[in-house]
């Protein structure tokens, strides 16, 4: 807040907090390094079978090789693009549908059992059907990704919309607000925290859809690499695919966290 002179005890308190934060970060990095070293050593001394379990150095070597020889970046790009497109479309469509349901309580009631059923259905079971219907290419994979995350979006956002404080709606009504104004000025902005937590869930779900889609049918992508690796029984390739996947999804999650900070400054 304001620039006051900081007392000695407050300074100590701030320092303690900072130390704690640093310590958490160091332990996090340390754990990662420890795991990698253990894995490497275990593979080196043949405590584990490196052919099945792979090892960090083998993955790294393969990674460099793939970078130059096999156009790894292209595979990564294809998967990331599919995920982003699927994720965005699922979010936009899901939002539109949940707005529609909020608008008409009657139709929300009508569709309720269908949405509940779709939600409990494992969407990956639909993937083979979707790919046959939509086509065995990018579009099939994207639609699979959408199908996995759209139902959660609809349910979360609809619930968020209908839990808008009814007294606040009443307040806007005393100003003579139209239903559209209530939506724009109140319902949508008050749902931003819920939207962001939905986005966080969706990014993971979209990846599930994309990888499942790529397992079934693809010529490129991280899912393709993983399936290829398992078919030729080179576990190094599979492991590399998984590691890349982990890194990218962590990065995307981080991006959403940055967006979250920007849009929720008004929260206590």
């Amino acid at each position, binding site marked *: 807040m304001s620039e006051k002179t900081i007392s000695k005890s407050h300074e100590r308190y701030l320092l303690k907090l900072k130390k704690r934060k640093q310590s958490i970060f160091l332990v996090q990095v340390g754990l990662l390094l420890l795991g990698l070293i253990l894995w490497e050593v275990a593979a080196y001394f043949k405590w584990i079978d490196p052919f099945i379990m792979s090892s960090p150095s083998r993955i790294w070597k393969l990674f460099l090789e793939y970078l130059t020889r096999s156009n790894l970046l292209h595979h990564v790009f294809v998967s990331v693009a599919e995920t982003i497109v699927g994720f965005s479309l699922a979010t936009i469509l899901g939002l539109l549908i949940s707005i529609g349901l909020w608008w008409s309580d009657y139709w929300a009631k009508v569709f309720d059992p269908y949405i509940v059923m779709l939600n409990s259905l494992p969407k990956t079971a639909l993937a083979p059907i979707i790919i046959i219907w939509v086509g065995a290419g990018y579009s099939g994979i994207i639609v699979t990704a959408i199908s996995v995350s759209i139902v959660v979006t609809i349910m979360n956002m609809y619930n968020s919309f209908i839990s808008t404080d009814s007294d606040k709606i009443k*307040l806007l*009504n*005393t*100003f*003579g607000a139209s239903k559209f104004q209530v939506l724009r000025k109140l319902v949508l*902005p008050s749902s931003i925290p819920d939207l962001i937590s939905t986005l966080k869930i969706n990014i993971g779900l979209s990846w599930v859809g994309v990888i499942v889609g790529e397992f079934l049918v693809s010529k490129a992508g991280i899912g393709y690499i993983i399936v290829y690796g398992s078919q030729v029984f080179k576990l190094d390739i599979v492991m590399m695919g998984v590691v890349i996947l982990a890194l990218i999804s962590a990065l995307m999650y981080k991006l959403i966290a940055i967006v979250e900070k920007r849009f929720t*400054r*008004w*929260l206590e």
Partner: protein
Amino acid sequence: MASEKLVEIKNLGITYHTLEEETEALRDINLDIYENEIIGIVGPSGCGKSTLLSIISGLIKPTTGEVRVNGFKVDKPLKNVGYMFQKDHLFEWRNILNNVIIGLEIQGKLKDKVLDQAKELLHNYGLGDFIYSYPYQLSGGMRQRVALIRTLLLEPDLLLLDEPFSALDYQTRLAISDEIGTILKREKKTAIMVTHDIAEAISISDRVVVLSQRPGTVKKIFEIKLTCEGKKTPLKCREAPEFRYYFNDIWKELDIHV
């Protein structure tokens, strides 16, 4: 009273329907309210006080009878009627300035001139340093003052106050009710205030209307005449010698048995 009749409530009644039952909340309410007058409405809990306000504001339609404001029948929320709630209902994602202009925004009256007016009002009411703060940074009393400015900016002829201080702690409540009561008198506003605080009703109002148990009807109307010395503010009025007589009479009229 010499001034003009602003609100006319005629044979007003309302019945609620739920799955289990139907409830008659208000029955045959008749009341006239004149300009520059502050009316306090007290009654046992569940007697339909807040429902009455909602009907006057046009949010709810009555089952029988009608409400007229300035001679026009109320059937939807009117632009010249302002409503203040128990809670401030500030929008957490808007800063204070954007909170007070939300009503203007809805009614399409947002212009540079009113924006300046909003800032000036915020300054006048001691919120000048908080124009760009967010609601969570303000105390309960300040937030309720912001809510009042939000209402006043629409320049309503009639203010409806639904237990506007009851969410505040006692000290803040006394200070804010004193302040708002003074503002209402100074700005020559007509107001209807629902409260369960008898002392608050007496100190602010010109007339206090006592409603009966459900179904609520007008049981008695007290004309409040307090002799206070010097400047007449709600807090000063509490020291008037007649204050406790009114208090006792209204308390008896409320007929509360626990």
